[in-house]
């Protein structure tokens, strides 16, 4: 089994700074430069944070799934450290997504929540991720914890498309919701810039969080201190 290594490169900090810069730029364009949308008016500007968050959230889930699979094949604890990061960041982004979605839904649909397939699937996966994070807290043995969370992550990830499909089906029997499907070119710039902004932030978070996890794993997996001859003699 591979022991965890803690990197000390500056890359995450660079990424965080880049991410903030992109988000500030993209949001400026989205809030003040881009025109208001035809039907949704200014409320539609929420899209410039909501859609980037959504795209990157899906990436984080894919990342967590990837880490889980790689860990099970390679038995390398570094991948467990990354999985830990992926789970936490994924849960954070899922929660943020649900909040943003609710804030957008209130003025456009008139309700805070609706059984839109995307909202519902996100909420279900949020609970799945929180469950796995909770599981990690209850398992003391780091190797067992790693194997179990990898298994649970794989199971939850495979569930996500099934949940989405079943809710879409279920939902289509009730009502249709309209959302902007086609985005015209005037809206592209802030969307793209913010998408990269969230991406850089997210990668920076994942790297830093993996380091914290790796540090703790090193601590847990460290061999007990070797006794010198004197100390061993005292014990005898």
């Amino acid at each position, binding site marked *: 089994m591979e022991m965890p290594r803690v990197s000390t490169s500056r890359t995450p900090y660079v990424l965080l700074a880049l991410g903030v810069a992109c988000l500030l730029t993209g949001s400026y364009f989205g809030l003040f430069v881009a025109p208001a949308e035809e039907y949704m008016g200014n409320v539609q500007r929420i899209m410039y944070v909501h859609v980037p968050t959504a795209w990157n959230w899906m990436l984080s889930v894919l990342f967590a799934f990837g880490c889980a699979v790689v860990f099970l094949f390679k038995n390398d604890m570094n991948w467990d450290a990354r999985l830990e990061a992926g789970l936490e960041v994924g849960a954070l982004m899922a929660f943020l997504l649900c909040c943003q979605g609710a804030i957008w839904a209130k003025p456009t649909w008139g309700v805070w929540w609706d059984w839109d397939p995307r909202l519902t699937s996100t909420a*279900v996966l949020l609970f799945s991720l929180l469950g*796995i994070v909770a599981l990690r807290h209850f398992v003391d043995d780091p190797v067992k914890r790693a194997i179990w969370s990898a298994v649970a992550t794989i199971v939850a990830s495979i569930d996500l498309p099934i949940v989405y499909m079943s809710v879409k089906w279920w939902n289509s029997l009730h009502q249709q919701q309209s959302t902007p499907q086609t985005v015209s070119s005037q809206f592209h710039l802030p969307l793209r810039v913010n998408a990269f902004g969230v991406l850089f932030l997210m990668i920076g978070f994942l790297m830093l969080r993996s380091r914290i996890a790796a540090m703790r794993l090193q601590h847990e997996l460290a061999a007990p201190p070797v006794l010198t001859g004197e100390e061993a003699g005292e014990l005898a």
Partner: protein
Amino acid sequence: MLTAALRKELLLQWRSRSQMMAVFVFGAAALLLFSFAIGPNTEALRTFSAGFLWLGLLLSSTLTLAESFHAEMENRALEGLLLLPSNPHALYYGKAIANWLQLAVLGVALVPVMVVLYDAGTTQLLNLLLIIVLGTAGLSAPGTLYAAMTAQLKAKQMILPLLLFPLIVPALLASVKATSFAILGDPMGQATSWIVLLLAFDLIYWSLCGVLFRLVVEE
């Protein structure tokens, strides 16, 4: 090997059938409480009867699933079982099938309770049986996998539902919808697609969890 494992599971369950009675009472009590939560609105009760049935089953499953590894946890029997020249797949599928049977029997037993409490009678009994069989299979496969994990933890009562509930949402949705159509009528023949979804869910999870079980129980 699978038949041996299955025989052992069924024997264990038969020996603890008084526990089954207690779980049935729990399930029936849950259905009763749901009706109090809605109040004496017969229309609403009938409309949501399918949902209540499956919620009651789901809650009961946390009891039965958590208990299913109880025997293996005593005296480290699980390790002993794994040392035998049998494969962990037999252990998993034996357990999962036994859990499935237990939940299906519970589901069937709760149907008359539902009929009486919510005035939710139906003539489509075979259909209902099919839905209960497929739906409880969907609960049992991931449930057995997670039960094996959480049985080894101190906080097992808490963690099992936390992990299981989000996962089985598609199976729950499909079971509730299909049952609802059986009770309230299905003019456009939509129940079939829900049953197909259930079947797909079952196939995916019975294979996936079988593969992953070995990882969860080995030392």
